[in-house]
């Protein structure tokens, strides 16, 4: 503090000096001397008390910054640790994180809230290996009610790099008003209901779709935005990435985006738009939904398959909604994408032990329960706290939410965006290359070989 004031004073003095010299019209001083001084005068600020400050870096939005409210309690319990929350808007999350690291101001705790996911951080060697700390501290995931399957997501080659804290899943939201108007019965919330298939969903959707010249009247039966674009074939049982991807830290040795199975899977999805005509094209969706929205929110979609975050705004929707299982699409194991967010310790953290203490605190059942309300409905991984989450939504039966969540976990697979290296580039490429198919200007047969080639290039980087 003192030092930086000194620098400032020097700089201002330099300017003043020049101004006075000029007004006096007298001889000049050497400019170089002053500049030299201005450049010097930097030092580190060393504090040597025993207290340790850790930084938690997160998104500057109310569903993330609520952790600030948990700090006083934590600091009371851990008088030697102070927690500081550093934040950035979503769009600047990655660039600020990288700049902080490059500037030697690396945060201690964070999560993959930006464009890139866990695998990106892992492969860039940004993460602290928690395995030894976990052993040392005798951390058991069962004490925190974290299912073992979820713990495994962020374990690579038996080393643990992240501990799950929140979990969104894929689910179906449906517009009860539209179902009522078409005199249809509501879709089931039970994943074991064998009649609830993709084809059955399309049939229901047809009965709700109205395509009219009057834009206020147009509505579609279903909007199937299951996972990110590259993951969608998995829903129909086609696997675009080779098996080793899931064990080696997200570097596929092979990809199969031009294989007949993958193309056929995508075809089924585009048939919803172009053949069955029960789904909107991207242009319509965007114009109805605006910048970041979802046309479901505008009440123009009967069934929307998407992330469970869509539930968060439910209380403001001007129509009644329900939750249902994602129908069966041909893959016996996978029907839902999981979006499990871990807490990570960054490699450059100077206090990993204290950081881990804070992470553990955030995971306790008590804090996880409190966080649901404070965050406005973040779903916890803690299965006990999850019971509170299921009751969070007005007008939706908690039993349905629970069934849908538990089914999603049983038939769930972690989202590729967390698991594959260089994912933000893959995703950008997909969005741009797929666009002509989404508007009907190109066929999958034309586009997929290009995508295959580009994915290969990106993964090699």
């Amino acid at each position, binding site marked *: 503090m003192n030092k930086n004031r000194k620098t400032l004073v020097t700089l201002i003095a330099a300017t003043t000096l020049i101004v006075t010299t000029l007004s006096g019209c007298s001889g000049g001083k050497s400019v170089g001397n002053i500049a030299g001084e201005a450049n010097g005068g930097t030092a580190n600020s060393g504090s040597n008390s025993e207290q340790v400050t850790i930084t938690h870096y997160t998104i500057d939005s109310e569903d993330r910054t609520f952790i600030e409210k948990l700090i006083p309690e934590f600091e009371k319990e851990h008088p030697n640790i102070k927690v500081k929350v550093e934040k950035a808007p979503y769009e600047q999350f990655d660039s600020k994180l990288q700049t902080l690291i490059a500037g030697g101001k690396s945060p201690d705790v964070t999560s993959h809230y930006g464009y890139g996911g866990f695998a990106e951080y892992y492969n860039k060697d940004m993460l602290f290996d928690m395995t030894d700390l976990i052993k040392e501290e005798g951390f058991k995931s069962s004490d925190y009610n974290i299912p073992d399957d979820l713990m495994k997501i962020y374990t690579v080659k038996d080393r643990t790099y992240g501990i799950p804290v929140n979990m969104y899943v894929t689910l179906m939201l449906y517009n009860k008003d539209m179902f009522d108007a078409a005199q249809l019965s509501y879709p089931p919330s039970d994943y074991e209901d064998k009649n609830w298939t993709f084809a059955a969903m399309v049939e229901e959707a047809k009965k709700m779709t109205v395509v009219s010249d009057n834009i206020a009247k147009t509505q579609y039966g279903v909007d199937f935005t299951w996972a990110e674009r590259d993951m969608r074939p998995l829903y129909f049982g086609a696997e675009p990435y080779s098996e080793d991807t899931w064990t080696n830290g997200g570097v596929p040795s092979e990809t199969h985006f031009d294989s007949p199975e993958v193309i056929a899977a995508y075809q089924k999805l585009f048939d919803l738009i172009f053949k069955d005509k029960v789904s909107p094209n991207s242009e319509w969706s965007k114009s109805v939904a605006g*910048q970041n929205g979802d046309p479901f929110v505008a009440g123009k979609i009967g069934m929307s398959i998407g992330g469970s975050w869509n539930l968060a705004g439910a209380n403001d929707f001007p129509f009644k909604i329900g939750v249902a299982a994602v129908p069966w699409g041909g893959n016996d194991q996978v029907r839902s994408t999981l979006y499990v967010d871990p807490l990570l310790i960054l490699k450059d953290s100077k206090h990993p032990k204290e950081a881990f203490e804070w992470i553990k605190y955030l995971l306790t059942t008590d804090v996880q329960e409190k966080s649901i309300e404070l965050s406005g409905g973040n779903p916890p991984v803690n299965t006990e706290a999850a019971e509170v989450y299921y009751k969070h939504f007005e007008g939706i039966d908690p039993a349905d939410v629970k069934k849908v969540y538990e089914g999603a976990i049983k038939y769930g697979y972690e989202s590729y965006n967390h698991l594959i290296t260089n994912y933000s580039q893959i995703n950008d490429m997909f969005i741009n290359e797929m666009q002509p198919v989404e508007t009907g200007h190109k066929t999958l047969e034309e586009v997929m070989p290009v995508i295959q080639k580009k994915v290969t290039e990106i993964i090699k980087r």
Partner: protein
Amino acid sequence: MSVNLRESRRQTFYMYMFISPWIIGFLAFALYPILSSLYFSFTDYDIIHPPRFIGLANYTEMFHNDLFWKSVTVTLRYTFISVPVQLLLALGFALLLHQTIPLRGFFRTAMYFPSMVSGVAMSLLWYWIFNPQIGLFNYILSWFGIQGPAWLMNPDTALYALIIMTFWTAGSGMILFLAGLQSVPASLIEAANLDGAGRFRIFLNITLPIISPVLLFQLIMGLIDSFQVFTQAFVMTQGGPNYSTWFYVYNLYTSAFKEYRAGYSSALAWVLLVVVMLFTAIIMKLSKRYVHYEGGGHK
């Protein structure tokens, strides 16, 4: 002889006195970042690990990179359309509002208004205006029986939508021209009027030469800024659809912060600097013949 020498020393001395605040600021705040980025451009630098020197590899790579070339074409097209049109609009508005006309203050404020609004709010408004279904733009086109395109969602039109948006910020340029027009002596215009010169001749022979330094400024700054166009692509289109708004600096930004390739990204920055510098030098050279400087201590 010695008088000339003394005069030139005097000029040099005072010049440095006056510009020294900037030189100090440059040395203190700009020099290190600039040299760092130059150094990074010759390295393989992923931000996490220390940079590793790789010579010219970053520079040679870009010439084989499709997205680099795409970004160059997109940016050039954007620049060559938006800069001249914006200049003309700004000059037009300024001339209209330089006259004594009722409600002049209101008109000036209104024209400048879109330049005052911050980025996020403005981009949301543009989303509505360009909305193919309910947007105002296509509604107005429909008066003339034109079925408007999907604008931001169509690869053929997205870039033009972004260009059209820039016309709304012509107010900034207008202010500059208005400021420039204040130095046109009213007496000169009156004298010309008395001589029976037409409006167009007065504009061409009196007004234009006097505001030419401002015109030059706007041309050069317009060029520098539009070569660096980024925010609209970042906030509104994310470079899409189908790379149609993949601007040069957007490409540079993604290289650094999505691809973790700060070295390559720095190389892109330096290529841009050299190119813009060339354009600026050409304009400066050409302008010597046309731009009219009253003073400047040319003795």
